[in-house]
């Protein structure tokens, strides 16, 4: 299987009926007397024996997500928007299509529907997921620990300026902060402002200064 197909492969959604049934059952309470690593090994070995998964496939998935995707795709999207006004317009109007136009590795699992929010001197956008940690995998990779933390998820919508301050981002009082709560259907990404002093830079050079955090709103890109 190619790396791209890993990200593009659809996950079955035909089992919604099970959700209603499942609420009638109590969730299985795991015994914390057991080391979680042993329980994971037990589950993997049983599933392997039943032929549901195989070690090679699991290894390939891990390798793909650990080494082959990350925020570089998102950085390419941003750099293109900084250098191509028409692309920028399209990106803000129809983020999903504009991102998908850059290649098949820019779309797929956990990035099916995208919305890009543009930072301006007047408005700063901050991305969170209060319910879990919904995140655009194809453009940003897997989320950092802070994005998954209870503290970030609880506080972003209540005290975004205090949260930003913990990241070292201090905005003027006149800048409005807007917080976007990602969900299972729609994933947000920030188009940060192009920094001063980057006039002569190529698209590639610009992509190098676009950080993961700047596409979540927790950092301002610098030269």
């Amino acid at each position: 299987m190619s790396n791209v197909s890993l990200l593009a492969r659809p996950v079955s959604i035909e089992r919604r009926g099970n959700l209603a049934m499942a609420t009638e059952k109590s969730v299985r309470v795991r015994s914390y007397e057991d080391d979680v690593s042993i329980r994971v090994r037990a589950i993997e070995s049983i599933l392997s024996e039943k032929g549901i998964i195989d070690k090679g496939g699991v290894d390939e998935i891990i390798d793909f997500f650990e080494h082959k995707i990350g925020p570089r795709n998102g950085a390419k999207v941003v750099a293109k928007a900084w250098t191509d006004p028409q692309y920028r317009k399209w990106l803000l109007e129809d983020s999903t299509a504009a991102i998908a136009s850059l290649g098949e590795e820019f779309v797929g699992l956990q990035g099916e529907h995208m919305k890009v929010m543009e930072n301006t001197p007047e408005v700063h956008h901050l991305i969170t997921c209060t319910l879990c940690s919904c995140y655009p995998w194809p453009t940003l990779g897997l989320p950092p620990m802070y994005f998954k933390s209870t503290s970030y998820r609880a506080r972003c919508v209540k005290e975004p300026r205090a949260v930003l301050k913990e990241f070292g981002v201090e905005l003027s009082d006149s800048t409005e902060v807007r917080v976007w709560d990602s969900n299972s259907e729609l994933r947000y990404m920030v188009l940060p402002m192009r920094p001063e002093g980057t006039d002569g830079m190529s698209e590639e050079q610009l992509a190098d200064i676009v950080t993961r955090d700047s596409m979540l709103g927790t950092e301002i890109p610098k030269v």
Partner: protein
Amino acid sequence: MDGVHELAGVDSNFGPIPIDPNEPLFFDEWERRVFGVTLSVAYAGLLNFDEFRFGIERMPAWQYFAARYYEKWAATLETNMIEKGVITPEELEARVNKLKKEG
């Protein structure tokens, strides 16, 4: 019922945000495995993302807040495999005990 996962604006003392620019993607080998096994099961058509999340959202609060991120994955994987009858509780406990004895 309010879900334990509904954290928007919850005014509890969750402490400072864990910001570490040098953190690894996975902290332990079992985190790596549970990630790969869960996605494999999903690709096999035996788990969708709604079911995955719902298994986490139903965790008891004391477990939810104590769990590391990938412990939540382990919990929902186990819950879903057992509820769907893919693995029986008995065979899982037997395998856990066997692995414990082997060390």
